[in-house]
């Protein structure tokens, strides 16, 4: 029985670790400025935790086999523990865990403590059951007013977010169901939700943030690779949660300008 336990614990350890190392399933391609740092912190964490995992499971399997009761005269050692080893172990794990934490903190700080850069492109993201809407401020660079009283999801994107078309600043606002961003330019997001909590999750951008009714949450990220990326909702928002899906198209700055100009033209 001891040998079987050893074999199974070691096998589980091996198989689990194998799939981590082989990267059979791994983080999706990172296509934002923050991705490299986040992925590095992830890799460091998984190497360190992997070592502890293998050592702990390995010795558990080894000990239950090695110290099995096989009827020999060997007696169990009478010991209530070892304070010195206990202290060493405690200090080591404290350094490991707290150190790992401090290592990752600058990335978090860069992501969330600083406001967006001056040249960032403002985009407002609005989540509602079960769609995402994106608003661009237009040539005036200012978002117009919206009003909850005007919200009507059945009458197009602008009505869905309650755009007040009588406001002059709202005249040039563009509201779309697909997010289009220029590559290598920071985006200054304002995240809103109108009904329940949603979470704006773009795996390739290494970006996730809840959109909460009553709050306008400012966030920023910088896409670095042209391409199409999926947006998923990561906070349970009701029966259509699984299909609250959107697309992010990252294009060249020229294509972005052309696209936005075309949307403006459509409005006239």
């Amino acid at each position, binding site marked *: 029985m001891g040998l079987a336990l050893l074999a199974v614990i070691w096998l589980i350890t091996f198989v689990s670790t194998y799939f981590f190392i082989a990267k059979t399933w791994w983080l999706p391609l990172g296509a934002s400025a923050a991705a490299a740092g986040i992925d590095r912190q992830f890799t460091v964490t998984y190497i360190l935790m992997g070592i502890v995992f293998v050592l702990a499971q390995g010795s*558990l399997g080894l000990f239950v086999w090695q110290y099995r009761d096989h009827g020999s005269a060997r007696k169990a*050692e*009478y010991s209530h523990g070892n*304070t010195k080893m206990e202290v060493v172990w405690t200090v080591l794990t404290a350094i490991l865990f707290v150190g790992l934490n401090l290592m990752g903190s600058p990335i978090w700080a860069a992501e969330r403590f600083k406001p967006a850069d001056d040249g960032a492109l403002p985009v407002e993201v609005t989540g509602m059951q079960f769609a995402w809407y994106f608003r661009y401020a237009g040539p005036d660079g200012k978002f117009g007013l919206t009003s909850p009283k005007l919200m009507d999801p059945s009458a197009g994107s602008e009505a869905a977010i309650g755009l007040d078309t009588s406001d002059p600043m709202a005249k040039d606002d563009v509201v779309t169901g697909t997010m289009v961003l220029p590559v290598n330019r920071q985006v200054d997001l304002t995240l809103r939700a109108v009904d329940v909590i949603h979470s704006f999750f773009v795996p390739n951008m290494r970006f996730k943030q809840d959109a909460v009714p009553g709050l306008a949450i400012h966030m920023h990220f910088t896409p670095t690779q042209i391409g199409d990326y999926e947006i998923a909702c990561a906070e349970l928002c009701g029966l259509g949660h699984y299909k609250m899906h959107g697309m992010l198209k990252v294009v060249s700055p020229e294509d972005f300008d052309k696209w936005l100009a075309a949307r403006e033209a459509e409005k006239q």
Partner: protein
Amino acid sequence: MATSEIAHAHAAPQGFIRKYIFSLDHKVIGLQYFFLALTAVWVGMILSLFMRIHMVWPSADLPLVGHIQPEAYLSLVTMHGTIMVFFVLTTAPQGGFGNYFLPIQIGAPDMAFPVLNMLSFWTTFVAFMIMIAAFFVTGGAPLHGWTGYPPLSAVQSTGPGEGLGADLWITSIAIFCAASLMGALNFITTTLDLRAKGMSMMRMPLTVWSWFITAILGLLAFGVLLSAGILLLMDRNLGTSFYVPLVVVSGQLMGHRGGSPLLWQHLFWFFGHPEVYIAIVPGMGVASQLLSTFSRKPIFGYKAMVYAMLSIGFLGFMVWGHHMFMSGMSPYSAFAFSILTMSIGVPSAIKTFNWLGTIWRGRVRFYTPMLFAVGFVSLFVSGGLSGPFLAQPTLDIPLHDTAFVVGHFHLIMGVAAIFGIFAATYYWFPKMFGRMMNEALGKIHFWFTFIGTYSIFMPMHYLGMAGQPRRYSQFTEVAYLQHLIPLNRFITYAAIVTISAQLIFVINLFWSLLKGPKASDNPWEATTLEWITASPPPHDNFGGHTPVVHNGPYEYGVPGAARDYILQTDPAIAPSSAH
């Protein structure tokens, strides 16, 4: 100490109803909790089976439920989580085994407040009935998940199930909270006041410490959830706006103004995180007790184990914000929550180290309870080590609310805690029912469950890394999830096998109950007080006398002793041999 008059006040009951239904005997109440949890775990498990099947074959027709709609899937998610957390993981280890064995292990004739104890069980029972009723009302069970985040949970028009079903759900939880508060008070008072002569705090078995600490956590945590739940009920039915700001649901402007959805998250997780420890700490106690008993060796670092559990409990109240890194809460507070969360790794590592140290140079006997205790340690390590990923806000950006989290908490507070319950069942069954369980069936059950649960929950980490969000009823609508469907199918197959294998446990349990060979008073040659009395123990636990304790709880393999275990009531061993 040891004033047993209070608890002694009730004589052995006559008649079926006072003896088995409205019993004041902590042992009967413990069994009632145990069988309630056993019923609940089957309900919760069947729900998860439906979920797993629906996720990978969304158009399948299932027995009982037919074709599952996405909203019905979310009801399954909600009810699976709620039933498992409250009516299994809180009920079985604490209400069940704690109730039965805490008084016996400290040498008391009963709990400090037997009537309160009975009331606590029956209140829990009512809560369970109300929870189950949510399935059968118009709109069905709520779809807001076990965490019940408003406004989804607070506004009736946000989805099916958010009507009467959600009201029943909250009411049930509030009643459960009240029951748990009664239980917690009883456990704490009993531990502090009813210990036998010689049973100093530092001679208490680690199981008693674990129930005691769990009770303190419960006392501090359930009150908060109870209040939070009442506020949620008011938001839903009385037009208050604690949690709901101005919202527009399906184009309809609601009447709420100015509430904060984050307030609920703070209150919920102030309960919810300690709740994780309420589920797992008793398992730590059981694992410690069993590893020492079956390795025939004193527990490695008894005091360190006690302090580790105390600090896990203490720190557990200061880390709730790590569930909210992506919530819109101040990013600065994430720093504090994160570093405190990582600190919990330290006492957890001490425990693991000491469990390994207990086995090291022991003489391990592989009875079924020991297999489950070893399994507990393995799962505790596996589930624990994904914690430092999620404790870092930086890594929560890709991992929060993905299958990685589901894998993490199922391994540690789900399966590890369940292994604690299985270990406790196999270990104490002879004491509770006077019969032995079948070893062969027990071992088969262990192998299926151990390998099965790893096969279910380890792959979820890979899915989460690849970005699979939680609580998706199917993966057909998002392109990047398509290639994860085969792995999801594998998990479903593993779940079907593992859940089926639990029938072996049930068969063993009921067969042994009726036909198992008679158990002696001390079949495992263990040292704590429950093993000095009859199997099952008499009404007053020790047949009219009160034990006097002379030794620590885990004196195995004492050099020079006649046998390899020294009961706590045996004459004191020479201090020189206890180095």
